[in-house]
């Protein structure tokens, strides 16, 4: 692992970000709009029902943002090299695929920190929702969400390598396929029993269940954390293995240079 080259990838995306307004929209504006929408919705529900429900919804959307933003960002940053026809130039350097992917993951990590900060502030100022009420658990929740999102991003990149840049838009659509089964806004128990089994295989379902437990009882479930963490390790290993498998295939088939 060469940190100079990893840093090069980070700085490359810093330069991109400062020249593209849509990147700022992506990092700051879009999450703010999202939190405003859900904030009002939560407030409305709060008036009708209990404040716990409002906390569940706001907590859910903030934690969901970690997964969705990181999951899509890794793929989208990769797509920027494809769209710019720069990918082959990068791959023709001594950089390894592991270094390249690590750079992309770090870029997403920095961006999600900025996104979260803006969301925390808006939720706290306008809706009196203190995300810090999740306590130290917040960091552990975020860790699990970040790992799963990274696995997801690596999986997305593998798909683009295999099937070409035309399926690039999948990189920002795929996370929404997970949402209904990940217990983001409602508990797993709401789902039909066969879908509950699916939900429990998704690491972030345990994160959202854990979040609701903290907000309801103030108790952090260490069991939910470890379940999510172990599942995450399995998914991370699977996504890296899948990437390595696809890479080997595209190097053999010549598709790597066709992805441009």
């Amino acid at each position, binding site marked *: 692992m060469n940190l100079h080259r990893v840093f090069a990838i980070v700085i490359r995306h810093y330069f991109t970000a400062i020249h593209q307004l849509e990147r700022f929209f992506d990092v700051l504006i879009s999450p703010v709009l999202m939190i405003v929408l859900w904030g009002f919705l939560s407030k409305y529900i709060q008036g009708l029902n209990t404040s716990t429900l409002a906390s569940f919804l706001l907590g859910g959307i903030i934690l969901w943002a970690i997964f969705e933003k990181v999951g899509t960002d890794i793929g989208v940053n990769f797509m920027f090299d494809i*769209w710019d026809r*720069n990918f082959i130039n990068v791959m023709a350097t001594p950089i390894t695929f592991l270094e390249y992917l690590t750079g992309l993951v770090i870029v997403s990590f920095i961006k999600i920190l900025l996104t979260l900060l803006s969301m925390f502030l808006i939720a706290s100022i306008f809706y009196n929702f203190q995300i810090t009420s999740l306590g130290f658990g917040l960091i552990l929740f975020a860790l699990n969400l970040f790992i799963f999102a990274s696995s997801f991003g690596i999986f997305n990149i593998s798909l683009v390598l295999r099937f070409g840049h035309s399926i690039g838009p999948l990189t920002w659509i795929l996370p929404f396929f997970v949402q209904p089964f990940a217990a983001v806004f409602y508990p797993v128990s709401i789902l039909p029993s066969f879908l509950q089994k699916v939900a429990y295989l998704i690491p972030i379902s345990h994160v959202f269940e854990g979040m609701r437990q903290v907000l309801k009882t103030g108790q952090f479930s260490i069991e939910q954390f470890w379940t999510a963490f172990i599942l995450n390790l399995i998914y991370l290993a699977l996504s890296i293995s899948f990437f390595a498998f696809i890479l080997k295939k595209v190097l053999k088939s010549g598709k790597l240079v066709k992805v441009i």
Partner: protein
Amino acid sequence: MGKNLVLEVKNLRKKFGDFLAIDDISFSLEEGEILGFLGPNGAGKSTTIYCLLGLIDGDFGEINIFGKDLKKHRSEILKQVNYAAAEFSLPWNLKLWECLYVYGKIYEVKNINKKIDELLEIFEISHLKNKHIRDLSFGQRARGNLCKAFLNNPKLLLLDEPMSSMDPDVVDKGISLIKQIQKEEKITILYTSHNMWEIEEVASNVIFINHGKIIAQGSPLALTKQVLENKADEPNLRDVFIHLSRIKNEST
């Protein structure tokens, strides 16, 4: 004194499905040599270059660069190699110096800023340093690509039609600058182009490839004499190219 081989390709073969892209080719490059790699579209030139960069795995054969096996030492080897093709661009939304800075970091170039300034000056694009790549003309972008190609003081440079679609003035200037740096730094270059004048200007040796097979090789003048069966005293690779392409196409 033995040959100081920079690149050695032995019996390289690559098949995509039923299509034989590279058919058992072997060649080598000595230090400071410029090899013109010629052939019609789809002949296997770019596929060979991708194999030399480890971006396509050959089915059979060996590639040794600086005496090391590319498969085993790819990252280490590529520190001293660079590549440019007009087909590929630097990141569209970055300024020229930012692009070069990123690549400088990847290649671990010392005193990056100084090196960037030197190259921008050599290629006469210092005034474009703060321009975005998207705002540059095709010729300016090509010169930016060439700056990137020389950033790490490569010992081996792979140029795949680096100046295609450019006007003769830009090509002429580009060629002069490549020759100047190559002479100073003794860089070994593998150069592909469809512009035969470019190859005549830079290459000391030429390989002609078609349907994945090497069908002729030698110095530009020797190849002209051999293929055109005349007593020419000037190289004429254009006619050689047409002659070899047609013969091969007719035979297939």
